[in-house]
């Protein structure tokens, strides 16, 4: 129970369903920000008081569980090191993967609970091949993307009571009707451990910046930067290039190379990605072969995880639109090829693969191939 309206209503519905429910607020910071207004999903004293008040209203026991050390190691430090490595991580995803449906769930199971219930907007369906994760009924609020990391075992002990609610307005109205004081509390935004929302400034305090070269795709130096890690793929502003592009058109960040402290820039077309791939992939429930979505690649080495291409949709950011794609597994990687070249893709982001409304699985993007550089598969 974060202290927001969603988890409060989710808890209420779990109580209504007849379960024995205990409210848990996660302490994710040893130094909670004091009394900022608005929900950030964690970290403020006010959020913890709001969560407690909701639990009191529902008549359920309430406890604060301290996961600040795990959160720091698995989410905050991971966020910093991913950026330092030139990748763009999603900390909410990491929190779901490592904290809410891992550390919290494991503790809960050991203590005798059956499941973790959250206020996420996503829907679990009992499918023919086991539990499936689907998009929420309210597409505007859908959070299935940030839950795409959940595995069969995690889904087996998860429940999202808000998943079939038609809209957030319904949730707020229900909270109002139940007398929950958080009914009109603003939605959380941003990253909870960066209170003022200034991610760049926060990172700059933690990753020592060093000046380096800005180069074009051919390696020619076109400018200097104050620190490679403060750039994001797709960024156009703030490059301060000394050498104009030959064609005079704007240039964008194509790649960040922390090892050589280089930022690679180029034309907008070069941002269009035709292929993305990651070796760290998981399936949310039955894998594509077991689900009948595709078949194993019979030509692959025996025992190797290899799957023939199958049609799907891919989503690369929490608020991006899913786009039609083809995906396959080969050489230890989940490879996804959008049917149309895709913008706004950077290593470190998570690519979630959908079939219809169902989340099939995900990978953390290790590498991308620009559309104009893609060598067609044999």
């Amino acid at each position, binding site marked *: 129970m974060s202290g927001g309206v969603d988890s409060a209503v989710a808890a209420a519905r779990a109580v209504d369903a007849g379960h024995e429910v205990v409210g848990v607020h996660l302490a994710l910071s040893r130094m909670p920000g004091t009394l900022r207004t608005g929900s950030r999903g964690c970290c403020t004293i006010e959020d913890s008081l709001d969560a407690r008040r909701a639990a009191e209203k529902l008549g359920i*026991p309430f*406890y604060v569980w301290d996961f600040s050390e795990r959160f720091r190691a698995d989410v905050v430090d991971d966020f910093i090191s991913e950026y330092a490595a030139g990748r763009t991580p999603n900390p909410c995803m990491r929190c779901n993967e490592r904290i809410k*449906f*891992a550390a919290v769930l*494991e*503790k809960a199971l*050991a*203590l*005798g609970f059956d499941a973790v219930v959250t206020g996420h907007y996503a829907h679990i369906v009992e499918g023919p091949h086991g539990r499936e994760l689907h998009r929420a009924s309210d597409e505007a609020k859908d959070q299935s993307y940030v839950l795409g990391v959940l*595995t069969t075992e995690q889904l087996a002990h998860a429940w999202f009571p808000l998943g079939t609610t038609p809209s957030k307005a319904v949730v707020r109205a229900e909270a109002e009707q139940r007398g929950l004081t958080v009914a009109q509390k603003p939605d959380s935004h941003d990253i909870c451990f960066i209170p003022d929302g200034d991610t760049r400034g926060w990172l700059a305090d933690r990753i020592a910046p060093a000046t380096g070269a800005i180069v074009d795709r051919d390696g020619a130096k076109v400018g200097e930067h104050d620190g490679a890690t403060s750039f994001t793929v797709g960024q156009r502003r703030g490059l301060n290039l000394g050498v104009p592009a030959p064609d005079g058109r704007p240039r964008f960040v194509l790649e960040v190379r922390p090892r050589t402290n280089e930022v690679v820039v180029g034309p907008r077309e070069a941002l269009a990605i035709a292929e993305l791939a990651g070796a760290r992939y998981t399936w949310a429930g039955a894998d594509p072969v077991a689900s009948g979505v595709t078949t194993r690649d019979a030509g692959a080495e025996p025992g190797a995880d290899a799957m023939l291409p199958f049609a799907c949709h891919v989503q690369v950011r929490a608020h991006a639109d899913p786009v039609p794609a083809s995906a396959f597994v080969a050489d230890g990687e989940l490879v996804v090829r959008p049917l149309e070249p895709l913008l706004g893709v950077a290593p470190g982001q998570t690519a979630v693969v959908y079939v219809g409304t169902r989340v099939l699985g995900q990978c953390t993007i290790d590498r991308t191939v620009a559309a104009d550089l893609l060598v067609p598969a044999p």
Partner: protein
Amino acid sequence: MIYLDHAATSPMPPAVRSAYLSALEVVGNPSSIHSAGQRARALVDDARSRIAATLGVDPIEVTFTGGGTEAVNLAIKGLYWMRRSGALPAGSAGSAAPARILVPRTEHHAALDAVEWLAAHEGAELRWLEVDALGALRLDDLADALGDGSGVALLTMLAANNEVGTLQPVAEAAALAAAVGVPVHVDAIAAYGQVALSPLPHGVSAVSISAHKVGGPVGVGALVLRRGAEVVPLLHGGSQQRGRSGTMDAAGAEAFAVAAELAHAELAERAQRKRMLRARLAEGIRNRVPQAVLRGAAGAAAVETDPARAAALDALALPGTLHLTVPDAEGDSLLMLLDAAGIAVSTGSACQAGVPEPSHVLLAMGLSEAEARGALRITLGPSTTEADVDALLDALPAAVERAQAAGLAARTPRLGR
């Protein structure tokens, strides 16, 4: 519900409740000059006399406060400021007013946070005092810290540790301090009404007590300030009491006095009963949860095989407190599981926004952070029965097993890896 957290707050006995309710019907501000005011004033003065009697002091030496924390703050800050009031401006020659505060590492947060505030804002210098493995102040370290008394503003110490229940060597410490002219504040909030504190040892300048720990109302406390001691007040206003401004709480004072008298009238009898119940509890834990480690003087008494030594150790403990640590388990998991079984206990340590920290008391006693995390404090009260103790003993093994499994899961994460 089975309530075994009497050290947090003790239920109000019916006699106290009815005295409190009657007193609430008395109209008048105790400082008003008219007869109504005088009737209210009589309640306060009478209560003051009765509280004073429980500690063998004179009524003028008792100042009612808005609770124990205020009493502790008034004593520590008030004594410190008074001792500093002769100080010359910083840097000027001869500005030798004492600034050092001697404070055991195992104090309650009311004292810890007060002295740390004085260190951060008022130029105090803190000298932390060590405790032994049972949690008792080490007099050798105190003697060392006192020296010839120069530069020492005051000593503050507990009469009994609120977490592990170990009684502190107040008389010996006060004698050492008095010999070098250092004033002593005793935080007796956990000890008052549990063990006899009267007569106050020579050398004690101030004693803090609280009503709700002995069955009185929350928000009522008192500072005993011996005749020779003066404090700079925390609150400025109408100067209604010695060292404190603010309208006097006649009903609160009356209820406190009734609760205090009751606790003292039955003190020996209650203590004996609680020691018996605690022995039953300790034995049951040793049989049913052998991996648990009993802490403090009471814990040492429970595992001592020599009867004479065991009795001596038992006498060094508050009668109703039993503290234990369970390896590989988090205290808050144990607390939650026992809560689910209808039994209220405590982890003993202070919480910051509900987040349990490893107890500074246990760390000072030499426990590792890992050991300190598995802490559980069980405190018995006058209403506790054998059946309550047995219910805890029945619920504890399963709670320990689950809490240890959860602790193991936390150390060897598997999901999401």
